[in-house]
């Protein structure tokens, strides 16, 4: 861990100014990921700006019936908020599928969006990694890649985004509110995280000095027809090998709208809007779900250890869509897959 300067920001403007002034300054809130990365010498910010005192810890209802979630709302507070539990159970479920209660108590909404990949090589400062050290190479491609991406990869990087919450937010068509030196702007969730391409060091489309202030979710129409299904190497406290957030609006047993986001398979929560559009109008049955999954995975590529993920992702999508269609969302408490 390298030494760093610590500043506690008292206002949003202060925070932005303090970060913008130093190229490698970073904001810190829960610190559940950043502090680990600093201990591993993977992140070496020379300045940490503590934003925990900023007035960003409330959940407000929007006039349309959605929610605007402050960036500092903890994962626990969000998952157990009665409005979220009642109207956005998919979001609650996804959050509770991740980490541990202790981590969720500390981790924040904004920080969750900004958590970095769990790629073994990214975490190990002794190995090359294009994400950590641009141009140094990607040993994961020929190496140990059990947890790596099968969709949207590049020759430079096959890392995945590790968040569960973001997979649900992607399915819910959330919007990210950011504030920066140039003012505020909103970023549709699908445009917030990016694919690695030839700049894998960039996880998202935020600019230096910008701060996430809130995440907004529009009203949900899915009722009980949703699920967050997470498949991992042990039954809790492990990142997803594959996860699926699925939400359906149904007219009888016919699909009106389908939204399916996948975690653990790409550098960002993965959605295939064309495939989703094709699913609309179809009978909600296994055959349609299979076709959908095949379509989503058309371009999937395995790298050896992770090749099983292609088949697993197919199966997980079908199961998740079955759960959503049946209105029997995956429970996150007993760890038994329904």
């Amino acid at each position: 861990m390298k030494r760093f300067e610590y500043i506690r920001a008292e206002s949003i403007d202060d925070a932005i100014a303090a970060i913008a002034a130093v190229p490698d300054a970073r904001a810190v809130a829960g610190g559940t990921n950043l502090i680990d990365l600093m201990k591993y010498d993977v992140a070496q910010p020379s300045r940490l700006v503590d934003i925990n005192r900023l007035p960003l810890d409330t959940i407000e209802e929007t006039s349309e019936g959605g929610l605007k979630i402050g960036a500092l709302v903890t994962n626990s507070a969000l998952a157990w908020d009665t409005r979220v539990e009642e109207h956005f159970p998919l979001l609650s479920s996804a959050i509770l599928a991740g980490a541990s209660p202790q981590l969720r108590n500390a981790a924040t909404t904004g920080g969750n969006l900004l958590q970095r990949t769990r790629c073994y090589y990214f975490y190990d400062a002794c190995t090359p990694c294009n994400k950590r050290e641009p141009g140094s190479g990607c040993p994961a491609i020929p190496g140990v890649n059990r947890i790596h991406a099968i969709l949207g990869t590049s020759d430079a990087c096959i890392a995945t985004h590790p968040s569960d919450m973001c997979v649900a937010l992607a399915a819910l068509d959330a919007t990210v509110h950011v504030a920066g030196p140039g003012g505020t702007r909103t970023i549709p969730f699908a445009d917030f995280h990016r694919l690695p391409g030839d700049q894998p060091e960039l996880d998202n489309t935020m600019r230096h000095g910008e701060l996430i202030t809130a995440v907004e979710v529009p009203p949900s129409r899915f009722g009980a027809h949703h699920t967050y299904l997470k498949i991992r190497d042990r039954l809790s406290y492990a990142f997803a090998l594959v996860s699926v957030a699925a939400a359906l609006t149904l007219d009888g047993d016919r699909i009106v709208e389908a939204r399916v986001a996948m975690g653990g398979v790409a550098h960002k929560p993965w959605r295939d809007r064309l495939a989703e559009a094709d699913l609309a109008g179809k009978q909600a049955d296994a055959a349609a779900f299979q076709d959908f999954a095949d379509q989503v995975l058309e371009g999937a590529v395995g790298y050896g250890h992770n090749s099983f993920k292609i088949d697993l992702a197919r199966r997980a999508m079908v199961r998740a869509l079955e759960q959503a269609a049946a209105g029997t969302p995956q429970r996150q408490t007993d760890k038994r897959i329904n």
Partner: protein
Amino acid sequence: MDTLITHIGRPTRRVDGQLKVTGRAKYAAEYDAPGLLHGAIVSSSIPAGRIVRIHTDKAKAFPGVVEIFTHENRGKAAWLDYKWRDQVAPPGHPFRPLHSDRVVFDGQPIALVVAESYEAARDAATLVHADYQPDEHRTDLLVERERSYQPPKKRSGVPKPPSPRGDAEGAFDQAPVKLANTYRIAAEHHNPMELFATTCVRGGDGKLTLYEKTQGSQNSQSYVTSVFGLKSDDVEVINHYVGGAFGSGLRPQHQLFFAVMASLELERSVRVSLTRDQMFHIGYRPEILQTVGLACDAEGRLQAVMHDATAGTSHFEDYQENVVNWSGLLYRCDNVRLSYELAKLNTYTPCDMRAPGAASGVTALECAMDELAYAARIDPLELRRINFATRDENDNKELTSKALDACYDEGAAAFGWDKRSFEPRSMRDGRDLIGWGMATGVWEASMQKTVATAKLSANGHLEIATASSDIGTGTWTILTQIGADALGLPLEAVTARIGESGLPASPIEGGSWTAASAGSAVQAACDEVRKSLLKQAAGLPGSPLADASPEDVRLNAGRLELKADPSRGISIGEIMTASGIGEIEEEGKAAPDKLQMLKYVSYTHSAIFAEVAVDEELGVIRVTRVVCATAAGRILNPKTARSQILGGVVMGIGMALHEEAMTDHHLGRVMNHNIAEYHMPVNADIHDIEVIFVAEHDDKASPIGVKGLGEIGIVGTAAAVANAVFHATGKRIRDFPMTLDKVLQN
């Protein structure tokens, strides 16, 4: 001479429990000293090669840094490498940190940064940089098995495979039912909660007190005195509390060398602690490939057993385990051929990890037995009963006891084995396939020479002492129980002293022998105290015990009294006051009975039954139920004993489903070197575990009838789970851990 037994056999809370849960039990890294310096180890980033240049300038200039040690300026230490051998070193050349510019394993310590604060040391350590000339490295056992060899020199305490008996190949060829399969078990890394740490406190007289995470304070002491040429009187090692070790603390780890070396060179107190990722570069359970061939007749009687194992070791030591011998003694068979080989890898030397050898070897054997049961279409439990062995055919010796049949009976009854349907894929619960599997477990019940003292004061307080360690197993508690019962005292009147190198000689805490060894030594010391007490009492004028022999009296509630007439007795205080002595201190010894060992051998046994629920479409396995029935002689404390079995079973589930060092063979490096990505079971993975101790009387295994429990819980558990997975799915997964991709494969 007997007493009213009041504590042994009762579920007794840990005497150190309150200290631990309130944070008052101090661990090695928690001791402080005036002017304490902090060391941070820098690890190599390559698995093989030479250090061409090591850059320390930037680190040296870092504020607070006192010194940086590399191979170029390492402090004085023994030149001859035998001086570096600790009590449990396997054959070979022990690793000598900073000895030369050569790198022979990934993560090898190449420098120690010593600074005034931990933060400065850690920060500066990232500024040390080495230029390497890499050599070719070898880390893939599947490749290196081509170069496997029989270890030329046997590791002390680990039996070699016995010579073949009968004609295994011939019998195999002729048998009507047979199979041979290869099993792989991934390398597993130790991850006890407490990191390895040494706080070396230098006294004004230059003497060193080492607060050290170890399973043997006297092993660490002799290592330090040998390596640094110090006198035993000048080095004291203290390990009162150990936050888990499981075998990783049997041998001194790097931090001990570094803390002492830096302390001697700088003439200051120094603490060095390993980081969690450095814990992945010390000893580990080696990856192992095993081929097991079994054959039986139509009735299920074993005709041939062949078990060949190849395990990884380092380039500098031949670490060895007893992997295959279990296959020659667990079941009756006249035709047995066993072999055990090693292959050199660019890793640190593997080390003992809970039931070393048996955890791997019995897993393969017990999976193969299940496969044979299905080939012969015999119930898997019935197949074990058919082949029940009543003696150790490897050594041609009698067994001191073997209540394994009771384990089978009671375990099966508790589990409901009779309701099992034989066919795979025949049991379901909704979408889940349900499978029931079982396995046998076996571990050696051994004793080691141990000395203890017992000191009884006139006020009825007893202090017992031996250098043994408590690595979380409950040694503090059971020794207190034994002392209390031996002298008829309440637990509160007994103080145990352990975990100090200056106490009476005790071996490292390993091999499940501590309860039997230290317990028997404490019992012996207390017996001596009672005899002395009676002698004093009998000699008093008008003593009501004047003519009593040791067999006639007992100690009860602080009073020595006649068994036949308890009204005739004298209190401890009275005896001592009248005799004019303040205390009675005696020594007791326990050691294996060499003569008896010519004829007898002693093992602990278990039967493990596991239920799994498998979501076949998604490959997800849940272990929903485990019953472990154990025969381990006398159970001193059913509460701590149960905890040992629970821990072993959980670790076995980890071997079955989770634990795996993922090595990048291009880089020669374990990549999942943190406990987020190196998976072991978490609460959600563990459901019902029922622990049964069957009655087993053994008057030969140890003087106090104890066999030991630290390891038996893991043995066979992974096989029981794998066999349950087969019963559920009809798929044999012979590659551990059984991750979900392997369920989806096939």
